[in-house]
């Protein structure tokens, strides 16, 4: 094994890239869960986003339009979940699982003609001045734009939840939907919007995989990323700041195991590939989760 072949600067730089899809999906789910809805369909929305983004960007030639298409695709799928859980009052756990199974089938069907095609390239930004700083420049300031879009979304969500009136309403709905309803807030409408935002973010995360990280379409390519995003929301105690930490931690494990594989570590590849999943499990065990939103996963039915 040759550990010296691992370049720490490149390692940290690819960490930011590896963390982005999970971060995007997780920040969307965080908003959904803060509004009191548990959507276990992140994996299904991610893979649908991946295929939608890929198809749109291949046919238009523009990755940017691809990302928009992915967000719309994810939001449409999520609104299915929203209608079922909010208006038809179905069990959120079961519906979320159904969404994942449905999304996997849908994406396989949609992506059939797109296997083996390469996505249009999505060049990295070399941010002037900042990108030229030694060490920090290559790590932080020489990535593709979506890395920064992801960070901006996390920042925006943090500010939205902490400082805005709408964020306060969203949190109220999530903490106690009966009280929020009594105050005259539209519980279902708030939740539908949150669910669709979550779907759009998951779609972006999926498209990041199929357009930037891989960049190809293969069936089942998310490989549990959506579930890891769900785990990171729990790890983050439903706080955007800690979510960032969780996503980078996870990105670090992924990148490290890939680098160890490349460096010819004595452990078989299959065992190294288990690392992200095992790390997620260990993190779930060690980190005591904070308090979950009070109404998380409960069905809201305004009885009269």
């Amino acid at each position, binding site marked *: 094994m040759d550990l010296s072949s691992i370049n720490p600067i490149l390692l940290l730089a690819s960490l930011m890239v590896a963390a982005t899809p999970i971060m995007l999906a997780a920040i969307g789910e965080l908003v959904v869960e803060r509004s009191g809805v548990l959507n276990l369909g992140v994996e299904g929305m991610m893979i649908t986003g991946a295929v939608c983004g890929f198809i749109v960007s291949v046919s238009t030639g523009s990755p940017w339009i691809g990302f928009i298409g992915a967000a719309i695709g994810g939001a449409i799928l999520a609104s299915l979940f929203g209608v079922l859980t909010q208006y*038809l009052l179905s069990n959120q756990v*079961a519906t979320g699982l*159904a969404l994942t*199974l449905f999304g996997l*089938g*849908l994406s*396989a*069907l949609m992506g059939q003609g797109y296997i083996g095609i390469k996505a249009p390239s999505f060049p990295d930004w070399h941010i002037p001045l900042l990108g030229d700083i030694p060490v920090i420049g290559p790590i932080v300031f020489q990535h593709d734009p979506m890395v920064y879009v992801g960070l901006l979304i996390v920042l925006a969500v943090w500010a939205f939840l902490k400082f805005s009136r709408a964020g306060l309403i969203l949190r109220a709905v999530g903490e106690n939907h009966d009280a929020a309803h009594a105050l005259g807030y539209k519980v279902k409408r708030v939740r539908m919007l949150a669910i669709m935002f979550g779907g759009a973010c998951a779609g972006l995360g999926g498209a990041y995989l199929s357009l930037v990280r891989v960049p190809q379409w293969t069936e089942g390519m998310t490989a549990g990323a959506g579930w890891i995003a769900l785990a990171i929301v729990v790890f983050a105690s439903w706080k955007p700041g800690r979510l960032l930490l969780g996503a980078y931690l996870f990105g670090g494990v992924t990148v490290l195991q890939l680098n160890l594989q490349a460096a010819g570590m004595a452990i078989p590849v299959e065992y190294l590939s*288990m690392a992200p999943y095992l790390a997620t499990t260990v993190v779930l065990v060690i980190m005591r989760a904070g308090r979950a939103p009070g109404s998380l996963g409960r069905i809201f039915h305004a009885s009269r």
Partner: protein
Amino acid sequence: MIMLEKRPQPSQGWTLATPILAVLLTMLVGGALFAALGKDPLVTIRTIFYDPLFSEFAWYYRPQLLVKGAPLVLIAIGLSFGFRAGVWNIGAEGQYIIGAICGAAVGLALYPMESVFIFPAMVIAGALGGMLWAMIPGILRVKFGTNEILVSLMLVYVAEQLLASMALGTLRNPEGMGFPGSRNLSQYPSAANLELISGSGMHWGVVAAFIAVIFAYIMLSRHIFGFQVRLSGLAPRAAAFSGVNPGRLILLCMAISGGLAGLAGLFEVAGPAGQISIDFNVGYGFTAIIVAFLGRLHPVGILLAGGLMALTYIGGEIAQSKLGLPGGAIQLLQGMLLFFLLAVDVLTHYRVRFGQGEVA
């Protein structure tokens, strides 16, 4: 305006009618989907739901119904206990893989010895393997309050990697010219899970599935454990006051579902699949979730739902080869079925009222 009014008790009639309604809706929307794909909807629906049972080649497909239905029913029965009690083991796919690996490993270790005890030993190893794999999320939930949904799912991916490692390394056939995959267990008489009656599709896994259905029915309707499971699902607080030990209940539910999933894996690997290979698992562990819900978490319902889901698998394969239907379409159809079921389920628990309801 349409209003929903909660029923004091779930409607008995709708409980039975909603799965049928969901199947009909799925056929309708599925037909529209097939039409959009450029296939004749009526022919496609007939190919999937009717031909495996009644066409001229049905003698070939009917046994397949048992072969494909058995693992689904076996896993779904196990899951139904947990789902009733609010224990969400959704990693049955992983437990299925580990059961298959453990059972096959016992058989392969004893190769080429012949003994009547080998197959029973493999069965026990398979069940234990699945059970232990399910105990990981179970114990973590009880000891550390970790979410069992996420942990059991993470372990599916770990199990898949382990399976790849086993098929390429530890359990690889030493006489296999370096090809991945283990020795073929179905050609090793002591370890093979062959058809009990030739041409019927009836193997030990099918027998086990039927036993599991009967066992689950008795457990749920006559045994104190079944009562505790139902009580914990309906009213957790009441269950705690009446002396149900929640930790023990979680562990038992996980053990039952893991054990049965492991059994299903072993029967599959020793019979229809024949060997440990990288992709011998075909997602029965996930489809079983649909089966469990479609069967209303009731043993008899699960039996029927398992048959229906097996039908879509077989019909889907026929439609793929005969009509060129894409493979993903069947998976989509199965997901759609669960969606419609959850959607129409509102009729079971709520009464639909039209017009302005009076203020109480």
